[in-house]
């Protein structure tokens, strides 16, 4: 039903077909009851890096929900990305306990050292810097999550180490 002439459309199509297969595989294993929607979105993001807006329609069809409904869920939760993240993701805690330990200065220093504003992805696609509200390490802050690895007592020295790590 789609033409395969344009190479960019071609890549998108391949990605969508892969997503369709993942969705079908998921519903075969777990069913298509509505409460499986969040676990499915987590899986898709894990596999594909983000939840493409183009996936809303096939998910809605699989779960027998309206597209508006699925779109509403995807956009409600901070975790689900609608665009790809950078190759590395650095999350810095902004909550009170980290602030009490100098978190605001670390937040600013991180933005400066990584060369990207909080909430953004660097132009070269190497790193995404995001805020997180509490990692539950509140006695050893300021805290960060570097590609899922927790780092406590973040100071300028640790930020430099993180900057070197994401440059690699």
């Amino acid at each position, binding site marked *: 039903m789609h033409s395969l002439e344009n190479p960019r459309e071609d890549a998108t199509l391949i990605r969508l077909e892969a997503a369709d297969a993942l969705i079908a595989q998921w519903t075969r294993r777990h069913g298509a009851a509505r409460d499986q929607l969040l676990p499915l979105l987590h899986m898709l993001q894990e596999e594909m890096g983000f939840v493409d807006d183009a996936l809303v329609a096939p998910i809605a069809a699989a779960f027998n929900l309206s597209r508006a409904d699925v779109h509403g869920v995807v956009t409600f939760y901070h*975790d689900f990305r609608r665009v790809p993240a950078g190759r590395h993701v650095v999350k810095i805690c902004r909550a009170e306990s980290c602030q009490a330990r100098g978190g605001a200065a670390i937040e600013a220093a991180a933005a400066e050292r990584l060369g990207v504003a909080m909430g953004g992805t660097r132009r070269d696609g190497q790193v995404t810097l995001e805020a997180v509200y509490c990692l539950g390490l*509140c006695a050893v802050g300021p805290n960060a999550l570097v590609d899922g690895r927790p780092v406590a007592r973040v100071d300028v020295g640790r930020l430099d180490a993180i900057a070197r790590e994401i440059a690699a």
Partner: protein
Amino acid sequence: MKRVYVSRDMASVALGADEIARTLAQAGCDVVRTGSRGLFSIEPLVEVEMPEGRIGYGPVGAADVGKILDGTHPHRLGDVGALPFFASQQRFTFARCGITDPLSLEDYAAHGGWRGLDAARAAAPQQVVDIVKASGLRGRGGAGFPTGIKWQTVLDAPDGPRFIVCNADEGDSGTFADRMLMEGDPYCLIEGMAIAAHAVGASRGYIYIRSEYPFAIDTMRAAIDRAAGRIAPFVIEVRAGAGAYVCGEETALLDSIEGKRGQVRAKPPLPALKGLFGKPTVINNVLSLAAVPFILAEGAQAYADVGFGRSRGTMPVQLAGNVKHGGLYEVGFGITLGELVNDIGGGTESGRPVRAVQVGGPLGAYFPPSMFHLPFDYEAFAQAGGLIGHAGITVFDDTADMAQMARFAMEFCAVESCGKCTPCRIGSTRGVEVMDRIIAARDAAPVAAEGAAGGYLGEALHSRAPSRIDTGIEAQTALLRDLCDTMKFGSLCALGGFTPYPVLSALDHFPEDFGAPAPIEQAAE
């Protein structure tokens, strides 16, 4: 081969415990990964098994392994359990945490595990509910509702399927007890849920864990797999959150499990009658459920004997923020705030004077040291215009700007509001604007200065001619109080309803940060 113990808790790993464990293994040690003992000023901590018992060393790094193994390291702590921080605790819920291998069923059984479940299953459901009622256990998530009464409502509900839901969406900054328990003693939570299931006749349970806790999610899933036979026919499933703070509110959490936007439901109906999938549901916090095995094993009286006033039993208090000896301190209710912050916590880590403590997370009040006589008790805190919440205490030194903290409370509410009710959705954004004006007036900078408020907030701020808004501190403070009043009484849940607590407490106790004269009460103290 020397047996050594190193924590696998997320906080320990963030401090470098994995590297130490690897080095110890390379040195030929038998490394047992435990949960955290709960005192982070001595972590990373290594305990070496010796004829006289476990000898702790901490804080240590991977380079210290040689000196740890030959016993010459200067950070030798001796028996960790005998340190004053631990010896003065009453560890009912966290008795095993930091001592056992979290996923070892043998360890769990050898340290008193499953005794509560066995006692419960030998009794009729009504008897179990009566025991929990007699213990005086109240909901540890923050509201403090009697757990036994909640269970009774579900037990008395009409026949049909019912659910146990564990609220592990511990989003409050300054709290980490749920995380520590799930990572350090997951079977304790599983046992508590199985007891609840027997008490109300549920066959299925869910644990909703926030996605910011990946270690807890993995540990709970592994533990559930291993304990499946022990708790059968009861079945438990972990559901991961997706970064929405409001899902810690119980009805929003239920909607989230159901696959919807995590929006708050109007109550009634109570979740106990129409909860998950519209069925009767026990929804309890991790700490409430994890307290139950002790109560069933040792008896309701043993639990109720400890405590203060109508707050019975123990509370795992979490000391966080700028505190010297931060960590988890489980103790009976009634200990004063000052004892916790100064005697146990040792004051600030920065060495500067304590300016304020926030108790109960982002929705809890800020208290000055002049209120450190307050006993840790649900009623005493409510009377003082605050709340215990999940018992997290975040300490701030005298560099804290309380007007900025009040602004942050509003900003956080705006970021995390589920959007269902107007006072929370709109009020929080208006609150940020009002705080910006107060801070700007305080700093004597013109309100319309560039960069005072960015993005759409700035546009909204300038949508009226500045001359039409009285941006003076007095007028804006009156507006802030009025707004807080609307949010407090008009919001659907605690997010919008309690955000005024940190804002107004900061304003009342630290008016000098809001450009007003300092209060007299501190001078009188």
